[in-house]
């Protein structure tokens, strides 16, 4: 009988992704107080209608004649502003790798197979409660081009709020993924509580017997908007 192994030490913190440094402004962003210009253009934003989104845009498993490979999942959630109000009728867009970890993008040279039945692009509009819903396959992990590390499974998301200032592009991760503590891009979000906000929750009750595995991920959009309440800021 051997002694139980001591718990594994925590992984070394990954170096946070810094991006392309020659693309980052040297100067600090210029603060613009929308309180001084309550009619600022950016306090409004584009509107999208039912005709902007196609019938199968929100089901990434139904965009080709055949069935894509991979584990069927749903990702649903609500979009709220910081006052907790639902963002209604707004556009949500996603893109992701296929189940093998390969994007349908000519610059993705990862030698994992493309799936002729999976493009990995989706769109939907939020409903009256601010809810969105996608059906897709769980994306695979893949190594970074410099082979320094593997990226955990993730889905890229793009959101619009009621105001252009609330624009958000981010990435959603899966709970329990062993790669999360090693990911440089997730580590670029420095606050652990903030990192946690990028990880979806598995919803066993929503996962129908033999249906897709259900993940829930709610999103809060930052930024001032024309309908912001006085006490909110």
């Amino acid at each position, binding site marked *: 009988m051997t002694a139980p192994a001591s718990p594994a030490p925590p992984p070394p913190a990954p170096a946070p992704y810094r991006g392309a440094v020659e693309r980052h402004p040297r100067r600090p962003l210029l603060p613009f107080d929308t309180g001084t210009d309550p009619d600022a253009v950016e306090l409004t934003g584009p509107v999208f209608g039912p005709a902007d989104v196609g019938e199968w845009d929100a089901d990434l498993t139904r965009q080709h004649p055949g069935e894509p490979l991979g584990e069927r999942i749903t990702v649903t959630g609500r979009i709220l502003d910081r006052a907790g109000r639902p963002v209604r009728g707004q556009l949500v867009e996603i893109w992701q790798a296929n189940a093998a970890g390969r994007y349908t*993008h000519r610059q993705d040279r990862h030698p994992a197979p493309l799936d002729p039945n999976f493009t990995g692009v989706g769109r939907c509009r939020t409903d009256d409660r601010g809810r969105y819903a996608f059906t897709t396959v769980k994306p695979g992990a893949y190594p970074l081009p410099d082979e320094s590390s593997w990226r955990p499974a993730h889905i890229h998301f793009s959101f619009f709020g009621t105001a252009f200032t609330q624009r*958000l592009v981010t990435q959603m991760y899966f709970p329990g993924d062993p790669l999360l503590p090693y990911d440089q891009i997730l580590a670029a979000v420095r606050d652990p509580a903030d990192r946690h906000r990028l990880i979806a929750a598995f919803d066993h009750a929503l996962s129908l017997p033999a249906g897709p595995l259900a993940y829930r991920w709610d999103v809060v959009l930052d930024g001032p908007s024309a309908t912001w309440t006085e006490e909110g800021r």
Partner: protein
Amino acid sequence: MPDTDDRGGPLAATPAQTIGPFFGHALPVPDGGRIAPEGHPDAVTVHGLVRDGAGAPVPDALLEFWQAGPDGGLAGAPGSLRRDGAVFTGFGRVPTDAGGHYAVRTLRPAAAGRSNAAPHLAVCVHARGLLHHLFTRVYFPEHTAAHATDPLLAQLPEERARTLLAHPDGPGRYRFDVQLQQSADGAFEETVFLAFR
């Protein structure tokens, strides 16, 4: 999941993450830069280069435009993702090409609401390698008087304000370059980027 603040304060915002290199098959849409209705007599072209701090063109940027119409209206209209060629939606989205160039065809806005702001296009710049998108604005050279009272331009020194001005570039054409970072040799002034509060 959003945390509810015990004190009833605002919810914590979901953090942004880099757009990454692979948005090109997902976000650009057909005719994304054709904001003006087809054949509109007042349509103008706004075009330019996106450059980095080394002066190199940025071939994998995505620019989004939001603006008032010629009547100053900011209500917008659906249809930006599936253009019918007739409706002015106020929203456009264009990727840069291999040379870092972009172009949109639009209608010049009028000043919106009661604002004393000069007419402008709001711009959101996305690119691989940015951790967060960048906001800037395109002002037009015809509105010199309005620029003097504009809440943004009026607070900027002349050399900074100049980075937000489109330049006449032939009939119905304007040039507006986006300089993501001041070049080391000073040849390119960094564009003013905004943090809205």
